[in-house]
């Protein structure tokens, strides 16, 4: 009887362990698949040409494989998104953690979370068919597909990521530090900017970095509204293509398995993977740091 129970316990623990370990299997297979499939690409295309070329036309009759247009496209949309999300997210976080009455916080927070729940295709629709026509009234040069409008929408979309992580960081600042500041006669604003933000700095930095990683990896908004044109430009009024929207464009067509075109999406994928991995790990350690401190 006891032996039977012990056997059962052992068996269950093994199953649970395997489930937990499956997450490592997932990461490993991502790395293996990306390397394996893009290996053939980098065997044909020298990595120097890939990293420094300014033309990205893999589907043309005379294909060019310079990744820089995708880099500038991604940089452009990401920086527009961040210039919307960082200030708004940070101000909202300060307001929610230091100013807002309990009731306001309890209503605003779930609404902000809902922003992250809306499907990204819907945001894409909104950027292309609502925001772009409005922006065109103010900026006549704006083309129908551009980096600006999806950038702005993406920025609003990632506000919740920025605000919730930085709010957590600011709330982690111990009460006695805040009370010390108030006791000296500082206002809430002075306390927020001169005491709380410096104290929560690494957590806020983590929030920004998570925002960057989200913006780099965001796909459908740019795929719909930015035009899928690999342009080597920093002009936000022109159509651009990002790493993500390139992968979407190729996947929509009928690209046979094993061809060089097929392998390009894995090359773009591996670049994307390492960029976001870098930011994710950085963000993870910054968050761990603030948890340790207080």
């Amino acid at each position, binding site marked *: 009887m006891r032996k039977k*129970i012990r056997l059962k316990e052992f068996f269950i623990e093994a199953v649970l362990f395997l489930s937990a370990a499956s997450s490592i299997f997932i990461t490993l297979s991502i790395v293996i698949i990306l390397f394996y499939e893009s290996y053939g690409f980098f065997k044909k295309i020298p990595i120097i040409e890939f990293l420094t070329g300014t033309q990205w036309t893999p589907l043309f009759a005379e294909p060019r494989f310079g990744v820089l247009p995708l880099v500038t496209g991604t940089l452009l949309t990401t920086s527009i998104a961040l210039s919307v999300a960082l200030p708004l997210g940070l101000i909202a976080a300060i307001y929610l953690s230091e100013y*807002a009455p309990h009731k306001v916080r309890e209503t605003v927070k779930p609404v902000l979370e809902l922003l992250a729940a809306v499907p990204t295709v819907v945001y894409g629709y*909104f950027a292309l068919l609502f925001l772009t026509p409005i922006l065109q009234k103010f900026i006549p040069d704006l083309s129908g597909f551009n980096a600006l409008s999806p950038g702005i929408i993406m920025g609003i979309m990632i506000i919740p990521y920025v605000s919730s992580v930085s709010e957590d960081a600011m709330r982690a600042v111990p009460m006695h530090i805040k009370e010390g500041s108030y006791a000296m006669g500082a206002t809430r604003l002075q306390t927020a900017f001169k005491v709380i933000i410096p104290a929560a700095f690494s957590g806020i930095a983590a929030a920004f970095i998570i925002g960057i990683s989200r913006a780099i990896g965001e*796909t459908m908004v740019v795929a719909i509204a930015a035009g899928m044109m690999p342009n080597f430009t920093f002009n936000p009024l022109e159509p651009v293509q990002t790493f993500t929207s390139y992968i979407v464009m190729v996947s929509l067509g009928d690209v046979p398995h094993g061809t060089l075109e097929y392998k390009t999406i894995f090359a773009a994928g591996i670049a994307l993977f390492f960029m976001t991995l870098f930011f994710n*790990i950085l963000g993870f350690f910054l968050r761990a740091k603030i948890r340790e401190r207080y």
Partner: protein
Amino acid sequence: MKDIKRRIAISKYWDYTFATIGLLSSFVGLALLLTLFLDLFIDGFPRLSYKFFTSFPSRFPENAGILSAWVGTVLVMIVTALAAIPLGVAAGIYLEEYAGKNLFTNIIEINIANLAGIPSIIYGLLALGLFVYFFKFGESILTGGLALTLLILPVVIMATREAIRAIPNSIREASYALGATKWQTVRWHILPYSTGGILTGIIIGLSRAIGETAPLITVGALTFIAFLPTSPLSSDFPFISFRWLLDPFTVMPIQLFNWVSRPQKGFHMNAAAAGIVLMVMTLVMNGIAIYIRYRFRKKIKW
């Protein structure tokens, strides 16, 4: 004295100004959500009819509908739920209740946090290489469902862990004191108490999966499907068929993407209508999740 009063007044002025700015920035999101909903509603509402839900896509926008799209979404979600729930909950239980504090546990934890941050399209590439070409599942419902499983697994795991962590140790100790084994404690005490939190996490994960587009595009979900998958009920023995798992498919967000990418105004209206349906689906699921969390939080008092 006067000087000090003036400085205090200035400080207070800025304090109140910032309070207003803060309130406004917190409401930017809300304003955007409302505009978005209104815009979708104005563009798409006239198209929402019984026919819209029961027609296949078509070359003519007036005749086009979302039948194959919503059927595809439902079937893909079934696969995702069946795979993600057991795997994610089991992993969460292991990490909270069984795992020792060692390097391996640490690696798993960092790894899961990292998986949550990987762009969804990378999961699409993984599914393309692994499920479509390595396991040869083809561009099928099974592949799509499993791709989304990988995507929401971190969400389910983290929700499970959080729910379990909230249970006080006294409950576990009481159970052990009565001679229960670890699994008996988990099965009869930990799981029932954490059901609310776990359910919330599962629903939020699934609502994210419903709106996901990019990974399904990379695994080759088609944009134009004018037929339904094989019926799960068959007339021959054993009356249940799993052929549909390997059928090609499309889902709601891909249908929306397809319509929005076309130049004609008529298709844009269809896209808006599909957008309303999709938004309602995700909002209802999120609402249910919030309600469950609220109910369970009220019911359990430690």
